[in-house]
Structure formats: structure tokens, C-alpha cells
């Protein structure tokens, strides 16, 4: 197993509960949807994997290593293996598409001669090699999200976490982004995606973990969304 949660509980300093006694395991190369209402613990689940937060109790294992016990100096190396994309893309507005992607390689100290080929390969994978010199504000929302995916996958991470990546996108653009995420998954990267988008979850029939009030209430191998959802009725053709 690539990832294991053992009895993971997260209580925030404010007293709010993120997760309660969560046990689960995720295989390498899996594509997993995290669903559930807002505040169910989806983002907590993802942030525990990037060590943005640490569990209050229990263990989070990546490749058999308990990441709750990592020393602060080891966290950056974890984040090179576990990358995350967001609803708001978090692109740097004063850098071109290419520079945004290359930036991730440079700040993780990749040799200069390897930066260009790797950044170009990532842009090609997300279908944006022709927009390499454009600035983020010249791109559509879907394109910006694809740049953020390129930036996330450029160092060849083991896991890609996506926190509601289609939250700001219309349905058609969302499918474009999903297509890219599936392509990334097919290359061997494990993808864990939190979403409210029922059409996507139902359309792709991947593993679905449903969270509610911090607990796993459902774990289906080829699941559907169920529950109250943003269902636009537009399924892939």
C-alpha cells in the first residue's frame, strides 16, 4: 500500500473536528474521489498528506513511513513526492506559463539543464505547450488549472492531491481538466481528488470515499457520488 491512515483523528486548536478515527489504505496508481458535504473533512484528509497539518492522534503512512513524525527539514522532500493543486490555482501572475512550471523545478534545486525538457514535457502533457509564453491572466480558468497541474506533476511526484480542482470551472472545462488528471494517473501517479461534482464522480466510476463529520461513511471500489450534489446532468459522451 502506498498510503495508510491508522486511526487518524484531527482536532483543530479551535476545537473543530477535522477527522475522527479514520482508517483506510490507498494503493499505488489509484484514482480516488473524496466526497462529502462541506466541512466533512476532505481538505483535512489532503492536508495531512502534505504535512500542512499534523494529526492529533493516529498515523499517516506514506510508503510505510509515518509522515506525522517527519522532522521539519524533511517536510519539503515529502512535498516533492506529494503535490497538491487547488480550486484557485495559486499561479504566480508575474511569471509566464513556462516560468510557473519551471519555478517548481528550480526551487527544488533541479539542475538547470534538466529544467527546460522537464517543464516542456509537463506542458505537453496538459496540452499547453503552445501557451508557454502567455501569462496566467491571459488564460481561461481551465487552462490555468492545467498549468497548475503541470507545475504539480513536473517533478514526477508519487501522489497528486487535488482539492476541488474543478470548483471554479464550467462543466465542459471541468472535463478537460479531468482528462488531464486521468492522463497523469495513467502515467502511474496516484491521484486523490476531493470534489462536489457528482457528474464527474458518476461519469468516471473510480474508487469513492465519502466523509461525513470527519468519519468515513462509505468506501466503494467503483463508486458514485450519491447524496446531495452539484449534478449538472452533463455526462461525457
Amino acid at each position, binding site marked *: 500500500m502506498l498510503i495508510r491512515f491508522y486511526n487518524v483523528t484531527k482536532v483543530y486548536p479551535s476545537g473543530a473536528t477535522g477527522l475522527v478515527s479514520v482508517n483506510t489504505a490507498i494503493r499505488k496508481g489509484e484514482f480516488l474521489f473524496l466526497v462529502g458535504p462541506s466541512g466533512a473533512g476532505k481538505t483535512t484528509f489532503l492536508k495531512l498528506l502534505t504535512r500542512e497539518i499534523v494529526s492529533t492522534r493516529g498515523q499517516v503512512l506514506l510508503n510505510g513511513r509515518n509522515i506525522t513524525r517527519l522532522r521539519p527539514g524533511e517536510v519539503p522532500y515529502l512535498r516533492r513526492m506529494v*503535490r497538491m493543486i487547488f480550486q484557485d490555482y495559486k499561479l504566480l501572475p508575474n511569471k509566464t506559463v513556462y516560468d510557473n512550471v519551471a519555478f517548481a523545478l528550480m526551487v527544488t534545486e533541479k539542475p538547470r539543464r534538466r529544467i527546460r525538457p522537464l517543464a516542456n514535457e509537463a506542458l505537453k502533457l496538459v496540452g499547453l505547450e503552445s501557451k508557454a509564453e502567455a501569462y496566467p491572466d491571459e488564460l481561461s480558468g481551465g487552462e490555468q488549472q492545467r498549468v497548475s497541474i503541470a507545475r504539480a506533476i513536473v517533478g514526477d511526484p508519487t501522489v497528486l492531491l487535488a482539492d476541488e480542482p474543478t470548483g471554479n470551472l464550467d462543466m465542459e472545462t471541468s472535463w478537460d481538466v479531468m482528462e488531464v488528471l486521468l492522463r497523469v494517473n495513467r502515467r502511474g501517479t496516484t491521484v486523490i481528488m476531493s470534489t462536489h461534482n457528482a457528474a464527474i464522480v458518476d461519469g468516471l466510476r473510480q474508487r469513492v470515499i465519502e466523509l461525513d463529520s470527519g468519519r468515513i461513511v462509505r468506501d466503494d471500489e467503483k463508486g458514485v457520488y450519491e447524496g446531495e450534489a452539484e449534478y449538472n446532468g452533463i455526462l461525457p459522451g
Partner: protein
Amino acid sequence: MRVRLSIMGYFLAEGWESAKRNVSLISLGTMAVSIFVLGVFALILMNLSNVNNHLRSSIEIRVYVEDNLTRQGLEALKQQIEGIDGVDGVTYVSKDEGLNRLVKQLGEKAGLVDILGENPLPDAFDVRVFNADSTGDIASRISDLPHIIGVNYGQGFTEKLLATTRFIAIAALALAVILLGATVFIVGNTVRLSLHSRAQEIEVMKLVGATDWFIMWPFMIEGMILGFMGSSISGVLLYAGYRVCIGRLGPVAPFLPVIAEAAPVARLCVSLVILGVLMGVLAGGVFTKKHLEI
């Protein structure tokens, strides 16, 4: 922490850009004044220590002996004094020579000697010592010898001078801590501006797995540049100012044992610049680290 050359180039470029963007006349000026005041105190200390050394090297023990001693007796006493550990040399000063010296010292008031009638001074020896610190000890051993009626070496004066120098050194040290603290704070605040203007970039860097050191380097270089600029201004002003002062003071008070050579002052100014650079790097690092922990 191995840093490749190409990465170092990136750090330098980023640090320089930030420094250019955020440096202000007020922050540079305040920093320069802080380091300048520090330099002034250091110069005062250096000069006091110079005066101290000068005085200590010229310390002699004047040993007065009984009047009725024969030439052989005087010679034997001289040899006894020379035999004491730490004594560099002994010179006999006859009562007549002593009087001549007194007349010279008194200058216009030399008439006083005539009032006294006969020469009131006893025969004496001037004793030079190797180490000024042992003057008191040696004087006490000499006074224990026979036929000695008194010793004099300016008791208490060197101790007082030393105590004054020590007091100023402590005051200067306390001031240095405050002024260096101010420098760190000024550089830190400028670096904080940079941190805020680049908050998004730092967030992305942390997100993709940049190490804290990697994030901190450009800000430490920015601090270094600011520290260098501030301390260079004060270093140049201090050096030029001191040279002007010495130039004016020299003809008026040539007897003052102040430091007139350029080299020690230049060394002090270079040290201040190095100190400014180090403080800048420290401030950049500390403030960035604190920011990253939030």
C-alpha cells in the same frame, strides 16, 4: 547545505532586486547612524587604550636613598635593585641632577628652589620595569631594601586610567548591543516588506517542496546588501571624519598620544562594514525563518 553556482546566481539576483525595491533613505540613514555611533565609541576606546599603553610604557620608579651613603654603598644598592625580577634597568640620579630636573619642571617658579637655600633632594635611582603591571610589586620589594627612604611611581594613576577605560568599554559594549539590535531591526523590517510582497511566491515554494534554506537565502542576501550599504556609508564617514579631526588636532596638541596612523582606523572601518554585513545576513535569516514558521 550545498549550493550550486547557478542557484547562487538566482539568490543574488533575487536579493539584489528586493533590496533595490525596498531600500529607503530612512532605513539606510538610521542604520548608517547606528553603526557610525558605534564606530565613534570604538575609536574613543582605541585612543584611550593607546594613551594607557603610552603612559604605562613610560612608567618609572623613583627610589630615594639615604644621604650618607658612600659611592660603594650606592653601587651595592644599585646592584641589589638590578637583581630584582622584572627590573629592566637602573639609572643613578645624583641630588644635583635631581635638582636640575626639578628646576626645569618648575619653569617660571624655579625661584622656589632658591628660597629653600640648600638642595633638599636626596640621591635617587630611576628604575625601569619590563612590565608596567608589576610596578607596584617591584616598588614594594625595593622599599624593603636597606637605606631606602622612599619610592614613587605615580601610585594609583594607572589604576584610575585603567578603571576609566574599563568603564567606557562596558558602556560602549552595552551601547553596541543596543545599536546592533537597532540595525538588525531596521534590516529585518525592510526584509519583512519583501516577505510580504513575495508572500504568494513563498507559498508556492513551500507547496512544491522548496527547503526553508532555499527560501531564506535571497532574503539573507537582501539583508547582506542592506547591511553592506548602511555600514559602508558609516565606515567611509568615520574614516574621513577621524582623519580630518586628527589633521586639526595634530598641530594644536602634538603631545596627545592619539592614534594618528591610517591603518588601525581603516581596519576598524572595515570591521564595521563586515559587522554590518553579518548583522544584515542575520536579520534577513531570522526574520524570514520567523515568517516561515507562521
